C-alpha cells in the first residue's frame, strides 16, 4: 500500500447496558422442561435426602434459554478479541489461533475419545501424542518430552521436581535456585513451591546475565539456574554457553523457561545451549487458545539424565504400534490426570503439521522482524531503556512522556481509544514504567503501520494535550475501573440487599 497508514479510532456501535443475571427474569420462568414425576403429589423433600435439598433458594435467577443466551452474547460484545483487533500483548496472552486447529480438534475420533478407552482402540490418539513429543524434541534439541503438565507454570514445577529427583538420586538435592531479576514471576514461585530458596541475580547494564555473577553465586548448595532465553526484555542471552558451563561444572542444572520460544524456532535449539530442561507453552508458541484461564498445556522437554523420573505414564512406540507404559518406579508421579489437556495437544500438532519445518522457522523470523520493525519506527518517540539487539518483543518505557506527566498506564489506556488492546505494562520489573510490545508473526505490515502511526499520534498528544490522558479511555464501555478500591474493598458476593 502506498497510502500513508490511517490512524484508526474506536467508534461506539450499539453496546447495550447489561444487568446482572440475578436482576433479570421473572418468577417461574425457566429454560428446561422435565418429564412428569413418577411420584405425582409427593413433595421433593420426601424424594431426596435432606442434605441434597438447599434450604435457601431465594434470589436464584429464573430465566429462559433466550434470556441467558442474550445476556452472555451481549457481555461478549463488550469484549475485545484477537479475531477482531490487534493485540500488541503478543503470544504472552493471545496470538492468533488458526481455525484449522479448531476443525481438527472437533473430529469425532478426538473429541469423543474417552481417556479410559483401551490402548488398542486408542492408537490414533497415542500416535498423535507420540509424534507431537518427537516434533517438540526436534524443535528444542531435548531427548525426552512429557506432555502432561497443564500450563507453563505447572511445567516449571514439573521441571523443578525432576531436578530435585535427579539430584536426590545422586545423594544431595541441594537448597538454592538462581534467578535473574528479569525472570517471569512464576519462576521463583515454582522454585519456592518445590522447597528451594530463590537467589536473585542482578542483570547487567545491557539487560543480560553476567557470567561473573553466576561464577560468584553458583556454589555446592545451588541446585539450578532458571532462565529465559531470549529473556523478558526480548534479548538473547549472549553468554548462555559460559553460563551453562559454569553451572554444570559445579554440579548444577539449567532450567529454561520456554515462554519466548517464539523467537528461536528452526534457528537455534535450546537443548544445544546446555539447557537441561525446558517447558513449552503450547498456548503461546503453538497457537492453542488461552486467556480466560485455560485450559493450557505446558509440556516439558528433558535431557537423557531425567528419563527415569519423568511423569508417569509415558507413551512408547513398539513394532505393533503405540503403548502406555505405567511401570515407572522412579517417576515423580502424575502431574495431571490422564494425558494432560489432550485438546490442546491436537491443536499444537495441527499447527506444527500444517506449517512444516520451513513454516516453523518462518514463524520465528516473522516474529523477530515484526518486533524490530516497530522498534525501529518508534525508537525516536518512546525511550528504549535497553537499546541493544532484541528479538520477538521490544520494551519501551515512559521516560519521555513523564516530562508532561503522562505515565505508561495512561499510554496503555489511550490505546483503547484508538481501537487497540494495551500491551504488557510494568513488566519486566527491571524496567521502570515498562511498555512491552510483542506483535507476533501473524500481523501484516499494514496492521503494524497503523499501530505505529497510532503510537506516534499518542506520543504527540502526550506533548500537546497531556491533561486529557488521566481521563482516557473515553470511548470504551467502562473507562477507568477503580483498581485500588477493587483490591482494598472487594465485593466478592452478590446479595439482594
Amino acid at each position, binding site marked *: 500500500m502506498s497510502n500513508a497508514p490511517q490512524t484508526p479510532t474506536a467508534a461506539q456501535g450499539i453496546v447495550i447496558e447489561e444487568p446482572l443475571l440475578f436482576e433479570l427474569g421473572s418468577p417461574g420462568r425457566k429454560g428446561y422442561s422435565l418429564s412428569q414425576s413418577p411420584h405425582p403429589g409427593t413433595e421433593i423433600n420426601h424424594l431426596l435426602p435432606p442434605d441434597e435439598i438447599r434450604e435457601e433458594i431465594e434470589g436464584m435467577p429464573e430465566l429462559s434459554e433466550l434470556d441467558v443466551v442474550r445476556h452472555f452474547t451481549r457481555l461478549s460484545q463488550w469484549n475485545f478479541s484477537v479475531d477482531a483487533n490487534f493485540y500488541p500483548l503478543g503470544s504472552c496472552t493471545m496470538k492468533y489461533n488458526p481455525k484449522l486447529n479448531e476443525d481438527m480438534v472437533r473430529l469425532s475420533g478426538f473429541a469423543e475419545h474417552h481417556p479410559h478407552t483401551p490402548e488398542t482402540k486408542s492408537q490414533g490418539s497415542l500416535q498423535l501424542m507420540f509424534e507431537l513429543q518427537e516434533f517438540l524434541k526436534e524443535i528444542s534439541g531435548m531427548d525426552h518430552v512429557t506432555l502432561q503438565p497443564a500450563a507453563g507454570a505447572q511445567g516449571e514445577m514439573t521441571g523443578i521436581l525432576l531436578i530435585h529427583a535427579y539430584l536426590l538420586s545422586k545423594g544431595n538435592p541441594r537448597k538454592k535456585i538462581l534467578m535473574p531479576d528479569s525472570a517471569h514471576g512464576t519462576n521463583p514461585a515454582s522454585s519456592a513451591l518445590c522447597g528451594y530458596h530463590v537467589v536473585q541475580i542482578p542483570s547487567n547494564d545491557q539487560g543480560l546475565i553476567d557470567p561473573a555473577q553466576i561464577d560468584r553465586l553458583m556454589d555446592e548448595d545451588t541446585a539450578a539456574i532458571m532462565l529465559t532465553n531470549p529473556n523478558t526484555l526480548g534479548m538473547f542471552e549472549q553468554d548462555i554457553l559460559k553460563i551453562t558451563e559454569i553451572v554444570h561444572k559445579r554440579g548444577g542444572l539449567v532450567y529454561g523457561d520456554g515462554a519466548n520460544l517464539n523467537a528461536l524456532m528452526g534457528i537455534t535449539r535450546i537443548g544445544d545451549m546446555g539447557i537441561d530442561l525446558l517447558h513449552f507453552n503450547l498456548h503461546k508458541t503453538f497457537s492453542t487458545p488461552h486467556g480466560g484461564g485455560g485450559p493450557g498445556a505446558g509440556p516439558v522437554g528433558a535431557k537423557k539424565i531425567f528419563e527415569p523420573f519423568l511423569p508417569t505414564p509415558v507413551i512408547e512406540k513398539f513394532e505393533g504400534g503405540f503403548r502406555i507404559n505405567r511401570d515407572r518406579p522412579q517417576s515423580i508421579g502424575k502431574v495431571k490426570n490422564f494425558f494432560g489437556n489432550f485438546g490442546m495437544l491436537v491443536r499444537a500438532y495441527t499447527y506444527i503439521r500444517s506449517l512444516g519445518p520451513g513454516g516453523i522457522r518462518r514463524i520465528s523470523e516473522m516474529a523477530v522482524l515484526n518486533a524490530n520493525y516497530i522498534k525501529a519506527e518508534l525508537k525516536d518517540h518512546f525511550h528504549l*531503556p535497553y537499546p541493544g539487539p532484541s528479538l520477538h518483543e521490544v520494551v519501551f518505557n515512559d*521516560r519521555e512522556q513523564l516530562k508532561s506527566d503522562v505515565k505508561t498506564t495512561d499510554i496503555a489506556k489511550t490505546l483503547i481509544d484508538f481501537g487497540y488492546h494495551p500491551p504488557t505494562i*510494568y513488566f519486566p520489573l527491571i*524496567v*521502570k514504567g515498562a511498555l512491552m510490545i510483542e506483535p507476533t508473526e501473524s500481523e501484516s505490515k499494514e496492521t503494524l503501520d497503523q499501530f505505529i502511526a497510532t503510537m506516534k499520534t499518542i506520543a504527540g498528544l502526550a506533548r500537546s494535550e497531556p491533561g486529557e490522558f488521566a481521563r482516557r479511555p473515553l470511548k470504551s464501555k467502562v473507562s477507568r475501573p477503580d*483498581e*485500588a478500591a477493587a*483490591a*482494598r474493598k472487594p465485593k466478592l458476593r452478590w446479595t439482594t440487599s
Partner: protein
Amino acid sequence: MEVPNDLLYTREHEWVRVKDNKATIGITDFAQDQLGDVVFVEQPKPGTELTRDATFGVVESVKTVSDLFAPISGKVSAVNTELEAKPELVNQSPYSDGWIIEMEIGNSKDLDELLTAEAYSAFIKEQGQD
C-alpha cells in the same frame, strides 16, 4: 519528591527514624509513587527477630508486589495495625501515618550503613534516569 532531612534511608527505598534505641521504618515518597496505589501491606508479628537485609514483609500495589527488607538487625517492637484496614496511608502519608514497623535497634553500627537524605536524593535522581 519529598525526602525529609531528619531521616536515614536505604537503597531499597525505605526510611528509618531513630529515636533513642528504637527505629521506625516505612517506605519513601519515591517508593510509594513508583508502586502506585498500595492495596495490602504484609507485616511481621511484634517480637520477630530480624537480621539486616532479611525480608520482613511485602507491599502490594495495583501495579506490583515488592518485598520489604530490614534496614537494620533487631527485634520488631510494634507494627502499624492501621494499615490492615487502610493500606492507602502508605500513599497518603509515607513518612508519618503510613509507617510500617518499629524495631529495637540491635546493633547501632547498622545505622552507619544507611544513607543520609542528601545521599538518598542523589540516588533516586540517578534511578530516575534509567
